[in-house]
């Protein structure tokens, strides 16, 4: 399998170089999306299926869509700084990269946390160690992460940029939406539920839902009036509210911030994750479609 790893690694670096050096905007974004998918594959090889799911859905899919939208609005590439500066920074960056590779290859890196997590996994209420870390042992980090999402959403809404206006995309999008939307909702629910025992969870499920929502908006099959946008904004903000309320409730019930009552951990985790899934889906969809009033393609 080492040959597969090496081919994959060469492909990843090649795609990264293509994505960051090609003059054609479309070609570089296409290379970026392929990079995301190859990286997801490499994370399967590093035994991180949860991260691979998130990378494929968010890192390749949603970021790719965001970049394509921005590329259309920003216009063609500007001329770049060349000459001596480019060469000297290339040398510095190459030196830094080689140094990092050398340090990580040489320095001993014992796997510290795995035994600790395995030891306490029964106390967390779930059997997937990544979900246990995200929603129980380090739930505080996840709470702050949702706060970052909310901050980004508020920034985008304050900027009041342009909003996506759907184009007429032909007859085939309606049957496509009719089949794919229910399947996407089904997959999101499945990912959310199985996140407690197998790869999956709120972020992956939210990304799948957001993808379905963006597809509906782009094809013009969803209402995009001001009332819908406002309710989506409230839904996006509700995830943080539920999480904070859960944190305060657990403080009252058990005396520990985000320390869930013993025996009911799984219900708490699934409940928080369900709220987060809807909120992440609404947030990601709004970050893509924009909330502004000006309607420009």
């Amino acid at each position: 399998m080492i040959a597969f790893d090496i081919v994959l690694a060469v492909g990843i670096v090649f795609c990264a170089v293509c994505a960051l050096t090609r003059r054609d905007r479309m070609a570089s974004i296409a290379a970026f999306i392929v990079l995301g998918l190859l990286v997801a594959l490499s994370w399967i090889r590093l035994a991180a299926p949860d991260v691979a799911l998130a990378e494929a859905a968010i890192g390749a899919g949603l970021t790719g869509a965001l970049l394509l939208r921005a590329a259309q609005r920003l216009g063609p590439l500007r001329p770049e700084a060349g000459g001596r500066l480019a060469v000297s920074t290339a040398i510095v960056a190459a030196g830094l990269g080689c140094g990092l590779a050398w340090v990580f290859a040489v320095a001993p890196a014992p796997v510290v946390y795995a035994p600790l997590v395995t030891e306490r996994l029964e106390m967390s209420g779930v059997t997937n160690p990544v979900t246990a870390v995200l929603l129980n042992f380090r739930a505080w980090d996840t709470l702050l992460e949702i706060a970052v999402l909310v901050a980004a959403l508020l920034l985008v809404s304050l900027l009041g940029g342009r909003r996506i206006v759907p184009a007429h995309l032909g007859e085939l999008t309606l049957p496509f939406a009719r089949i794919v939307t229910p399947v996407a909702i089904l997959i999101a629910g499945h990912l959310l539920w199985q996140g407690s025992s197998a790869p999956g969870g709120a972020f992956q499920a939210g990304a799948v839902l957001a993808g379905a929502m963006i597809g509906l908006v782009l094809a013009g099959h969803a209402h995009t009036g001001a009332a819908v946008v406002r309710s989506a904004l409230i839904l996006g903000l509700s995830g943080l509210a539920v999480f904070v309320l859960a944190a305060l409730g657990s403080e009252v019930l058990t005396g520990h911030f985000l320390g869930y009552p013993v025996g009911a951990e799984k219900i708490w985790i699934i409940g928080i994750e369900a709220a987060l899934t809807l909120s992440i889906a609404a947030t990601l969809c709004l970050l893509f479609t924009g909330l502004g009033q000006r309607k420009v393609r």
Partner: protein
Amino acid sequence: MSAFFSILGIGLIATGVGFLALAALGLWRLPDLLSRLHVLTKADTAGLSLIALGAACLTGTRAEILPLMLCVLLIAISGATVGQLIARSVTPRGGRS
């Protein structure tokens, strides 16, 4: 019976990989967007579906076959729709000419 299924699975996967290689060759060698799409939509869908069917033959449990069939469904639908959308974007008058 299981030997039959594993041989069938490997055969299907090999055929699927062949289809994907053909699609890649077409993408590389063909001159313009429409003929590339022509190769890509068909060979891609066929290749991935065959690989999923082969994997289903190899695993054999119902819990694993169901997601694979869902994959085939999604690939078939999205391949056809996206191909049509890309072709629409390059043909004049929204593909109605």
